[in-house]
């Protein structure tokens, strides 16, 4: 301990004062020579002893009070390792870089990290003195920051107190760069940036270093104070149609990340449609592990679009424990079936089984509309009104009919070609090649010349299908629904055509291709080498036929049906189709409404909702020219948190700004002065209080 004014210790001679007072006090007592002292001792020995002790205590208290007074005036101080920031009073330029990202909403010890940051910043601000110029730079992405330093510290304090966590991740490098710019504009020699944040690796990962070693002084205040910040988060969510679960079936795939150094066991994951939980699952996560969980759910009848929420039990950072996606049943698939072998008897028709598979039960909610034409009627058909065209046992089309079809495919259409007895490979070679992934060759008939009882044994079977392809997603390996199908006749394929992107998705047991996929322009073509009816195989009679047809059609239609994503990250904007509406209102999850009408809407095909500020569902209400106002579910979109902010892994020293390394690279732990006179003065007051009590008790 040292003293700023050691001469003031002369005051210690004041120690004599209480001693003198004590002695005078003793002398002041009336002296009585008394005979019956044994009765006094006997009666109140304890009282007397207490009085004696009280007198001595009074003396001690007074002596200590004198010592405390002298020591306090001498201004004692000590020094200790500077764990906290070094703060110097006087003229200087200071920038507080505050992490107000959603990460700062993490609760640690009953307090959010942002509250800790603000406490620390306020303490520093109080020590700077009125001559300091100060600014507050917010570190969350997209935050508006000041352009100059200010001496109005009251406003700075108010600005600090008004801060709340945003829903954006932190970008500390950008914020520090901004701080460096502000400090560079200052005339003060002493320039310091205080970075108050849970300094995470993700928040420093991008961008260049804000300054080099000759930059301003940087005081790092990691508000995590050495504590680990475990966090579970839903980092991805995808909702796709699932044919195996029916026409209203959805596959929900959520990615859960364990940003922690400890394992998380039995984590419960809930899936809700709207506000109704429809599925739950559990998973175990190793430290730092990410896992995907797939749920199959079904949208309720009559609901064509709904928000799907996947959530975890709330943890210290609850805001990233849920993620939302919009599940929207696509507009009905419009399938044009070109029946190359139409019959009056439906059961003999080439596409009887195909139609049944496309519209099971012929129900309106099948999601598919099927239009059947014969090849001759193809000229009058508007192909743009369809998503998928199926050529079922269609004899080779003449060139003038092939060209528009090929153009339609290249523009994004989906085409399925299935052969049959009416398909002549040579004729196809002549005109149909633009539509085919591979040229056709003559079919092989495994039953040719075989006795009836040998036909089954000589039949081919499907094998080696691409299980990872969306078409085969509903099928397991060796699924009997496909593997048991017997193919007695299949079309062989010739050499590869000019189609570059060609994949054999399935083969027969003899190695011949069974299903070939190819990308043609923006479109997709599937070539099936057997018939869609029972003429060449018995697949239509097996349970695998329906999902195979459904998935194939959906696969073909997907590329064409692709629309702008309905999910953005918080902070991003979203383009909305105007749908020739007169007025659009976008309501964010907090209830704030953005209105597009008049000049902002007229004559535009899209408008842009500028910035999403909150995670959740953004609903759009539209008013058409006729004055009809209703929610436009097709425009509903969601915003989710940037998963980068969920990772609270501390930044490694290499990522820290150069000037901010501990001790500025000198290796010496900085020391700070701790003034003690406040404590001594407090002790003095306490002693005076005790003295008053003792005096009162003596009376």
């Amino acid at each position, binding site marked *: 301990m040292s003293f700023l004014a050691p001469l003031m210790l002369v005051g210690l001679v004041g120690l004599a004062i209480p001693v003198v007072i004590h002695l005078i*006090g*003793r002398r*002041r*007592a*009336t*002296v*009585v*020579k*008394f*005979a*019956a*002292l*044994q*009765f*006094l*001792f*006997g*009666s*109140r020995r304890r*009282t*007397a002893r207490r*009085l*004696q002790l009280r*007198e001595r205590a009074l003396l001690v208290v007074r002596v200590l009070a004198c010592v405390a007074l002298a020591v306090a005036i001498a201004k004692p101080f000590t020094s200790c390792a500077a764990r906290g920031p070094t703060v110097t009073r006087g003229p200087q330029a200071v920038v507080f870089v505050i992490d107000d990202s959603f990460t700062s909403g993490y609760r640690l010890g009953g307090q959010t990290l942002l509250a800790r940051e603000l406490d620390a910043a306020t303490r520093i601000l109080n020590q700077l003195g009125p001559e300091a110029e100060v600014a507050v730079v917010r570190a969350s992405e997209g935050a508006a920051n000041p352009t100059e330093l200010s001496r109005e510290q009251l406003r700075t304090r108010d600005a600090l107190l008004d801060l709340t966590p945003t829903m954006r991740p932190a970008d500390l490098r950008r914020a520090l760069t901004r701080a460096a710019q502000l400090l560079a504009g200052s005339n003060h020699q002493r320039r310091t940036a205080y970075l108050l944040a849970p300094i995470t690796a993700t928040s420093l990962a991008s961008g260049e270093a804000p300054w080099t070693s000759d930059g301003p002084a940087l005081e790092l205040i990691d508000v995590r104070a050495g504590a680990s910040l475990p966090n579970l988060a839903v980092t991805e969510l995808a909702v796709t149609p699932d044919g195996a679960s029916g026409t209203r079936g959805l596959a929900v795939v959520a990615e859960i990340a364990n940003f922690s150094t400890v394992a998380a066991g039995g984590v419960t994951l809930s899936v809700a449609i709207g506000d109704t939980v429809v599925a739950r699952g559990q998973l175990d996560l190793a430290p730092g592990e990410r896992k995907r969980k797939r749920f199959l759910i079904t949208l309720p009848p009559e609901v064509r679009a709904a928000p799907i929420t996947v959530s975890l039990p709330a943890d210290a950072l609850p805001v990233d424990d849920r993620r939302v996606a919009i599940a929207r049943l696509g507009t009905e698939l419009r399938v044009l079936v070109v029946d190359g072998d139409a019959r009056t008897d439906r059961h003999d028709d080439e596409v009887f089984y195909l139609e049944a598979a496309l519209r099971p039960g012929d129900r309106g909610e099948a999601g598919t509309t099927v239009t059947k034409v014969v090849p001759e009627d193809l000229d009058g058909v508007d192909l743009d009104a369809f998503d998928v065209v199926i050529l079922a046992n269609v004899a080779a089309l003449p060139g003038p009919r092939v060209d528009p079809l090929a153009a339609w495919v290249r523009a994004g259409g989906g085409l399925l070609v299935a052969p049959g007895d009416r398909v002549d490979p040579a004729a196809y070679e002549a005109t149909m090649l633009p539509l085919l992934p591979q040229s056709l060759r003559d079919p092989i008939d495994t039953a040719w010349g075989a006795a009836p009882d040998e036909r089954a044994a000589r039949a081919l079977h499907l094998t080696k299908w691409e299980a990872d392809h969306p078409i085969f997603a509903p099928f397991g390996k060796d699924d009997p629904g496909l593997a048991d199908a017997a193919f007695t006749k299949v079309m062989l394929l010739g050499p590869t055509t000019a189609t570059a992107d060609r994949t054999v998705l399935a083969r027969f047991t003899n190695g011949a291709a069974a299903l070939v996929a190819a990308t043609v322009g923006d479109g997709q073509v599937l070539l099936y080498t057997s018939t869609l009816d029972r003429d060449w195989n018995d697949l239509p009679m097996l349970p695998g036929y329906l999902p195979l047809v459904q998935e194939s059609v959906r696969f073909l239609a997907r590329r064409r049906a692709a629309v702008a994503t309905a999910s953005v990250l918080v902070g991003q904007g979203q383009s909305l189709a105007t749908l020739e509406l007169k007025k659009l209102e976008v309501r964010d999850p907090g209830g704030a409404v953005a209105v597009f009408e008049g000049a902002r809407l007229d004559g535009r095909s899209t408008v842009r909702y500028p910035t999403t500020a909150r995670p959740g569902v953004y609903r759009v209400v539209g008013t058409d020219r006729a004055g009809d106002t209703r929610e436009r579910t097709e425009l509903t979109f969601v915003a989710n948190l940037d998963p980068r902010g969920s990772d609270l892994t501390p930044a490694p020293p290499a990522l820290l700004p150069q000037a901010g390394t501990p001790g500025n690279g000198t290796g010496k732990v900085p020391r700070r002065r701790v003034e003690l006179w406040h404590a001594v003065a407090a002790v003095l007051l306490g002693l005076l209080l005790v003295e008053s009590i003792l005096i009162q008790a*003596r009376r």
Partner: protein
Amino acid sequence: MRLDPALLARLGSLAIKARLIVDSALSGQHRARLHGSSVEFAEHKEYSPGDELRHIDWKALGKLDRYYVKQYEQESQLTAYLVLDGSGSMRFAGAGLAKVEYGGLALAALAYLISKQQDQVGLVAFGGADGLRHVPPRAKGSHLGDVLAVLEAVMTAPQGTTAGPAAALERVGELARRRRALVVLASDLFDPDDQTVGALKRLRAQRHDVVVLHVLAPEERTLPYEGLTLFEALEGDHKLLANPSAIRADYVARMDGFLAHTKDALAQAGVDYHLTPTDRPLDETLLAVVANRRGQRERR
């Protein structure tokens, strides 16, 4: 007229004070003698109505067939031992006389009275510079001067001793041997070991008449002091800094308990006990003793 002890103390020699006390006490009294309990037959007197039946001499009735009444007379010479406690605690004065002065005056008056009766009076006193002092009992007129001189010496000694009166009483027991005597003790009986009461009981057991003047200052009964007070022991070096108001009630209770205990113990032993505050007129004290002795004699 009542003799204020403080006023009396300012008068001349102890002999004059003793005489004043006795004269004041006996003024108007038809007969005042200090009796012992030892009496003997004097003569017969023919019975007349009013005489006590218990004094009728039944043997004379048998021999002479007449009623005669026995008349007794005090033993020709009373032997009295006066014991003055001159210990340190007796030096306490309070607002009036010191206890040792009051006790000494009372004993001087008794000595004067006894000497005037031509009875023998002796003195055992302690507490002076010479320790235990003894004046053997004599009936001569000049002997009173010796007694009073020793009394005065003890009364005016600068400081007392820490010893209690038990040793002095034991000495009296030895001096009186088997001859019955009147023993008068003036003391505050502040004896932590109760040895004094034990010694008094032993004297009673030896059939001596014992009178105790329990001398206490009024301040010792009520502890009337106020404010921070440093009590210093008159015997020993004990000191006590205390607030009297905080301890008064307890002190008085203990003092009253001590007095009651002492009175009971001495009454059971047949000791003539007189609680004698130092503000009480000395002639009253003398009269109380004389009257009490007379009463006892008549009861016998």
